[in-house]
């Protein structure tokens, strides 16, 4: 089921097109990566989905409704975020949850469990300002999902977190996907995107540059490289321009043949194949190459 639908959306600030004819769909039960360099238009896109900004053109639907009508079903962790430092943790959570339509008793039940899941058990009655920066980051994540939203939008959720806290948050995010929530993840941390996201959209200068399932995009950008594991010693193979060996694993760069044709050759020559995989390029490389290509032709 599509939970977020954006169609030909445009937003201009002072003559500058922050978002230019963008279309995307986010489905229930997936983690959707919204990527792009600084100033690509990611935050503007998110703010329009959250009804903080109005689009100049195009349509946006969240859970089948115009933005703003589904606020209570969306959890939003903005990049520019903070908490009421003078309030106690539970007071702060109760207020933010109440604005999402959750009463105090429901908040108390869910908050206890969620605080424990990020290692903040026992902090409910402490003031927010008494928590470390990392703890406050985790508390913000708890506040984002406290009202059990169907759609969760996370803008740089791992910013400022140590590796252990990052793992805790990642665990929660994948758990939410298992529960059938739709998660939009905007981040610069490509390694996290590769490990978490099902589909991605790469934006540059307000436009959609890449869009689709992550694995498919990665393969599409590395069609000429194959990883082969074999105990045999490889001799010259037709259509293979370069061979790199790492133990019993070879990385083969193809020229003029497809991976299927290489596999057929290996079988015909009785070379034992223990593993054969069309190699993928790290997302970061794809990101850089696509953005550079757009910038410099």
């Amino acid at each position, binding site marked *: 089921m599509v939970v977020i639908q954006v169609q030909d959306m445009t937003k201009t600030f002072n003559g500058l097109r922050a978002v230019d004819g963008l279309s995307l769909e986010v489905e229930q039960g997936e983690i959707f990566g919204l990527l792009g360099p600084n100033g690509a238009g990611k935050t503007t896109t998110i703010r329009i989905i959250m009804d903080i900004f109005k689009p100049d053109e195009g349509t946006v639907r969240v859970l089948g409704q115009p933005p703003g009508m589904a606020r209570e079903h969306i959890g*939003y962790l*903005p990049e520019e975020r903070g908490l*009421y430092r003078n309030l106690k943790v539970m007071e702060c959570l109760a207020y*933010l949850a109440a*604005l999402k339509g959750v009463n105090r008793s429901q908040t108390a039940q869910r908050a206890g469990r969620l605080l424990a899941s990020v290692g903040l058990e026992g902090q409910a009655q402490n003031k927010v300002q008494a928590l470390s920066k990392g703890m406050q980051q985790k508390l913000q994540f708890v506040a984002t999902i406290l009202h059990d939203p169907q759609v969760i939008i996370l803008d740089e959720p791992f910013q400022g977190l140590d590796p252990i806290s990052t793992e805790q948050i990642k665990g929660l995010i994948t758990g939410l996907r298992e529960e059938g929530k739709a998660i939009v993840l905007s981040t610069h941390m490509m390694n996290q995107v590769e490990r978490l996201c099902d589909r991605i959209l790469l934006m540059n200068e307000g436009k959609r540059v890449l869009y689709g399932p992550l694995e498919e995009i990665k393969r599409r950008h590395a069609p000429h490289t194959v990883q082969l594991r074999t105990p045999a010693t490889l001799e010259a193979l037709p259509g293979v321009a370069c061979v790199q060996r790492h133990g019993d694993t070879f990385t083969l760069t193809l020229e003029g043949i497809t991976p299927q044709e290489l596999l057929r050759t290996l079988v015909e020559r009785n070379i034992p194949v223990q593993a054969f995989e069309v190699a993928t390029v790290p997302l970061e490389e794809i990101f850089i190459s696509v953005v550079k290509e757009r910038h410099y032709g």
Partner: protein
Amino acid sequence: MGKIWLIARHEYLVSVRRPGFIIMTVLVPLLGALGLLIAALFGGQASTFLERQFAPEPEHIGVVDQLGCCTPILPAHQERFRSFSDEKAGRAALEADEVTALLVIPEDYVESGQVMVFSKRGGFSAAVMGDSASVRAFFVDHLLRDEVDPVLRRRLAEPIEPVFVSLEAEGEPRRGPLNTAVNIMVPYFLSVLLIMTIFTSSGYLLRGVAEEKTSRVIEILLSSVTAWELLAGKVLGLGALGLTQVTIWLASTNALSGGAMNLLGVAVPVLARPEVFVLSVVYYALGFLIYAVLMGAVGALGTSMQESQQLAGIFSAMAAIPLMLGGFMFSNPNMTLVRVLSWFPLTAPTMMILRLPMAKVPLVDIVGSIVVLILAIPTVLWAGSKVFRAGLLMYGKRPSVADILRVLRQA
């Protein structure tokens, strides 16, 4: 509406616990009680002492009568007034502290009305000589001694002796300069407090918005509520906070007025004119609405608390103009400038709150200023909420006047 109520409740509960609010709210009744305590310690002398402070009378006054209208001095005035043959002799007596002031009546006094007043060190008592009851009586008695009956002369010297009667207070109505001073000063003081409340409450709004913006809570809030709901909730919550403060002050002043009656013999006219009280609350509400929305917008525009406060100073200064005119208002609460400012939306609330207890304000000014405010409020709300919304998400850069105008044009 539910979310507006939630925000209002949150703002109220957070601000009511602020030390600044608690201190300010408690301080006013405490100072009143302290004043009464001091009065009680001094017993019956307090009233006399305060009367002297409010209406000081020189004890001995020298007179050099170059015209001859006040010579010889009538027996009724000989205790206080002493005649000198010339200015030199009078000055010498003043230097020797035999008299505390010297009046020189020139030959053209009847035409010009001018009398030279000499005092050793200037001071308040010399400055208010023209208003001194005994000096007035001295001149009226001597100028009209042969033509007018003594009772009528006394009435001419002091045409009215106001007797303020408080229906709530028990006991005999009292009279005297202290009573007069209290009847002017207490409502004026309460008016100033009411105006201060407008600024402290809208100041909390300014501070709250600036804090939420600098601590980056604002975008989290905007994911749950609209900018309009956020502003409306804050205005309602902090307006209620201001009313709480005013109610506590009025209730405590009313309670303390019983003590003032017993100790000082003065009826404190807190609720002596209910229409003034009701209208003051109306102007408070209208004034708070205008200033709170402006403060909210300004709070959203600033990139830091200091910057927001600097921007807010423009509006605070405008609203403080009526307070600066306090001196003129005492002499003529219905003067043209005061009336003009009563019709200008940004000064009308504070001007009218100050004016109402001091005089009978023309009905046209009351109706006119309320209508002007009611018409101005939707405009301020519209523009304020647009600027508020636009300013909330601008970090690091304060919008220029051109940016603000563009926001309003695009709205």
